[in-house]
């Protein structure tokens, strides 16, 4: 006979613990199942003494459990006490393998084979997933562990580390100093880990600090008394079986992402995107009635959000109407608008007036509004200007706005958008400057949504994505080709057009291909190249907001050049016949495309030296294609004084955000390790408190709400983000400089490593400081300069050649 509970809560993270505590407080029979040996396992795995943040600050906490920003140990201890105090029915080491049945009678099967039943299930398992075990005899021996908390715990031991990823390599490196370490990898090379880790590993192997066994499969772990070592790890090497006597085995094999498990419970996801979250009702109920989902898995990655939801979900299950904890925040948002008196009234107005959002659930809409701002600009107020670098998204709730687009050389075109329309999607999608100026009309009410919330919405709500695509398509065509184009012509053009996506290096079309259509680049950038004397020579770099493919269209000849994606690129492909037909009917578009064609022909004619092409290729390979503003150093000028770094540290709290010597050099152009302010910043991808933003002038910066999680550091492919303490740094006074005293930035750094609360720091292009960025200002020889990809070609063509002849 299996045990029966009213509520079974799976996952003892912040959300699960909070739900269980509330259930216990309400006297409801419940069970909290946790696969790890203790509650709050993720928090346990934080490094010792880590400061845990409590973002978002203004969201009130509503939970039976207490929580506030503090040191990891203190929070864990408090929670432990409270779990005991509230008599939470916690069962650790219980991994759920299956859930079946329906509301009122769920059957939960554990990995141990045990089953229990519950009326309601709350899934709070987060996204960490279950750690992969060795999957062989002996995998659960006490000497076999799947995590390493403190490498200093072990010394003078023989330790086998299993795995070829970063976790395994990092563990092996950390243990290598004071232990004999043997690293076991199934594949032949350590190609899965970061370059830095790979280099460190190779160095350690050369120095004999780490032994490795590659192409080696683990067989089993046995207790053995041989040689005084407690266990023996049996592996299959290419040479045959080997028994490795050791003190302990540390296996770092990653985790099984929970999605498949969740799907096996019957929960459906809106699409196959990795980032998509299950569709939930406003009461956190999934498509399986009685199965509730809270926390990270539901799309709420912060501790406080999860705890509030844990509390609320129990109340909902018990049938108690509770006002969500965020109701206060929403009320505040609507308070600025006179005609909206209550939250429900406001939400209804949004639902009725914004067709784009019609497909959203109430929960999604609330989430959307929590992230958004609602405001009534005065008539004539400028919402944003053309060429601004902002990327939020606007919906018109009431009134109208006018959009002024200054064409390239043409007269400005003006459009009007009415209530129910939206704008700002082009900047959002392309990551580039705004393509027009937007001015508010009479009695206008707008909803402004930040980039991240909008992208999240597009990923999770396919209905919104589809609608946005439909409208934005015509706008793209109008904007890129000809602003004065008739609506009917637009309709004709976009019919049978396709969205296409390309990864870096993918070919859009090849030289000599049959002409196929016009490619409007909506996101990313491409290079145009041609084979000259058997070598691929780059002719041009074309960025989002432009089109390629018109040459073959105008000349009716095969493709004259190869076009390749220089960064992840999205295009809208217009059909050739339709474009030709529209061009025949409209002389203005014809002349525009023609002049573009002539420009390209001229460009192709100007003979390009191999050096220029090589440099462009080098820069594109370095990922400069997706940059908006990058620091380059002309090494024929650079005296290697590192004054750029010193100046950077001087104006940024003693920590330099650039590493001059790191990074590759081609001929005399050096790309130092420094932020490039990417069009679609990789660092923004997974920032729990949404602390990374782009300012109107284009600087990507990390705000004060950073919780120091290090995600951005891991996500940045260019390694330009570091974790450091942000503290008031006194610049040296003039007297101190003259007499050579006072704190130099090196002091500040050594102090930094001792303080626990580290936050992410990166180049902010000296935002908020007047004058050029400090690195450029502080270069004595003018070797350091910042460019955007559109202009580096100009620099390469003129400046580079000049420099060759100078001196």
């Amino acid at each position, binding site marked *: 006979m299996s045990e029966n509970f009213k509520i079974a809560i799976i996952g003892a993270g912040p959300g699960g613990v909070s739900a269980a505590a509330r259930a216990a407080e309400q006297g409801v029979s419940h069970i909290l199942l946790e696969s790890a040996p203790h509650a709050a396992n993720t928090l346990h795995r934080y490094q010792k003494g880590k400061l845990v943040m409590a973002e978002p600050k203004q969201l009130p906490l509503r939970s039976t459990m207490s929580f506030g920003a503090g040191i990891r140990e203190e929070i864990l201890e408090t929670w432990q006490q409270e779990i005991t105090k509230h008599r939470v029915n916690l069962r650790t080491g219980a991994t759920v393998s299956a859930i079946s049945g329906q509301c009122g009678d769920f059957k939960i099967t554990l990995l141990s084979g045990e089953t229990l039943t519950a009326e309601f299930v709350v899934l709070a398992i987060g996204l960490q997933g279950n750690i992969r075990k060795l999957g062989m005899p002996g995998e659960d021996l006490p000497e076999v562990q799947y995590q390493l908390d403190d490498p200093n715990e072990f010394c003078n031991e023989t330790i086998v580390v299993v795995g070829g990823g970063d976790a395994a390599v990092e563990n092996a490196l950390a243990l290598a100093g004071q232990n004999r370490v043997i690293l076991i990898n199934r594949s032949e090379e350590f190609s899965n880990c970061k370059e830095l880790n790979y280099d460190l590993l190779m160095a350690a192997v050369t120095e004999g600090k780490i032994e490795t066994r590659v192409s080696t499969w683990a067989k089993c772990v046995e207790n053995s008394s041989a040689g005084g070592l407690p266990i023996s790890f049996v592996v299959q090497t290419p040479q045959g079986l080997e028994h490795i006597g050791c003190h302990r085995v540390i296996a770092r094999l990653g985790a099984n992402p929970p999605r498949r498990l969740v799907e096996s419970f019957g929960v459906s996801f809106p699409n196959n995107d990795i980032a998509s979250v299950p569709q939930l009702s406003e009461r956190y109920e999934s498509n399986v009635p009685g199965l509730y989902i809270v926390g990270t898995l539901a799309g709420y990655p912060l501790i406080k959000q999860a705890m509030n939801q844990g509390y609320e979900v129990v109340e909902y299950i018990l049938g108690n109407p509770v006002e969500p904890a965020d109701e206060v925040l929403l009320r505040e948002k609507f308070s600025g608008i006179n005609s909206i008196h209550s939250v429900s009234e406001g939400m209804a107005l949004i639902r009725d007036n914004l067709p784009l959002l019609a497909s959203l659930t109430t929960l999604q809409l609330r989430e959307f509004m929590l992230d958004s701002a609602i405001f009534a600009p005065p008539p004539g107020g400028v919402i944003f200007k053309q060429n601004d670098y902002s990327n939020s998204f606007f919906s018109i709730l009431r009134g109208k706005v006018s959009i002024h687009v200054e064409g390239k050389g043409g007269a400005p075109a003006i459009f009007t958008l009415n209530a129910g329309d939206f704008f700002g999607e082009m900047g959002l999608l392309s990551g580039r400057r705004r393509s027009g100026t937007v001015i508010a009309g009479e009695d206008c009410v707008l909803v402004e949504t930040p980039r991240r919330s909008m992208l999240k919405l597009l990923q999770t709500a396919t209905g919104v994505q589809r609608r946005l695509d439909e409208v934005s398509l015509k706008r793209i065509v109008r904007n890129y080709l000809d602003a004065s184009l008739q609506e009917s012509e637009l309709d004709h053009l976009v019919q049978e057009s396709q969205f296409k996506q390309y990864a870096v290096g993918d070919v859009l079309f090849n030289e000599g291909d049959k002409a196929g259509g016009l490619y409007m680049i909506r996101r990313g950038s491409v290079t145009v190249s041609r084979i000259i004397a058997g070598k691929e020579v780059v002719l041009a770099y074309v960025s989002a907001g432009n089109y390629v493919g018109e040459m073959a269209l105008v000349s009716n000849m095969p493709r004259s050049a190869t076009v390749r994606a220089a960064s992840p690129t999205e295009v809208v492909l217009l059909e050739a016949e339709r474009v030709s037909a529209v061009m025949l009917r409209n002389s203005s578009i014809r002349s525009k495309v023609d002049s573009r064609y002539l420009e390209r022909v001229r460009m192709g004619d100007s003979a390009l030296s191999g050096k220029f092409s090589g440099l462009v290729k080098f820069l594109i390979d370095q990922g400069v294609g997706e940059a908006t503003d990058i620091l380059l150093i002309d090494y024929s000028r650079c005296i290697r004084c590192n004054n750029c770094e010193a100046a950077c540290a*001087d104006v940024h709290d003693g920590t330099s955000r650039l590493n001059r010597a790191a990074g590759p050099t081609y001929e005399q152009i050096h790309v130092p390790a420094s932020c490039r302010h990417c069009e679609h910043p990789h660092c923004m991808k997974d920032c729990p408190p949404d602390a990374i*933003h782009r300012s109107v002038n284009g600087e990507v910066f990390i705000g004060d709400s950073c919780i120091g999680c290090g995600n951005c550091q891991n996500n940045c492919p260019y390694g330009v983000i570091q974790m450091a303490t942000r503290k008031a740094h006194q610049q040296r006074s003039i007297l101190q400089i003259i007499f050579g005293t006072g704190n130099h930035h090196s002091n500040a750094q050594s102090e930094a490593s001792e303080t626990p609360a580290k936050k992410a720091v990166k180049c902010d292009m000296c935002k908020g400081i007047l004058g050029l960025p400090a690195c450029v200002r502080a270069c004595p020889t003018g070797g350091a300069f910042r460019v955007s990809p559109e202009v580096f070609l100009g620099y390469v063509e003129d400046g580079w050649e000049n420099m060759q002849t100078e001196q």
Partner: protein
Amino acid sequence: MNMMQHATLLKYNNCRYFKLSSLLVASCIVAYALVETAEHPFGGTWLGYTLGIISTLIMFLLMWYGVAKRRTPKISGRRHYHESAGQNHNNGGAQSGFATQQKSERRKRPARESWRYGGTLQGWLSSHVYLGFSLLVLASLHTGFQFGWNIHTLSYILMVVVITSGFYGMYTYLNYPRQITQNMAGDTLEDLLLKIT
């Protein structure tokens, strides 16, 4: 691209400091040639004093290069109206540029560096080179070409030595970076050290 960045330190800002120094040197030579003083021992005449004072001021300016190099001026300013975007987000609000825009007039990043923000170090160095060179002429005029075994001549010689060392410095600044890149061939210092050991 800012044209400024194309120029080497000698041609910085359209050879601004070359022109300035040339003008200074020329006017001092003209003054020396035209002005007739009663007595010959030159440093003590009013023109001699004037040249000496100008030279001293230039020397202080040259010495200030050392300070400019070690200190990057940090003058905060509202270059952006989105300044508080990060903070706004703490409140769960959108990055409403609009609201804050009304408060502060928007100002674009200055297209050029201005002396008001501390100038560029390249500008400082360019002026250092040309003003240092002009000092050779100015100080020589100040001496009235009266040399002898005295403390005045010694300090003059020392000054000439210092300025000459500057010429060597300029030569290295202009020529060695390119050679360093070629010799290192993409290696870092650590790589080279590893190769040696």
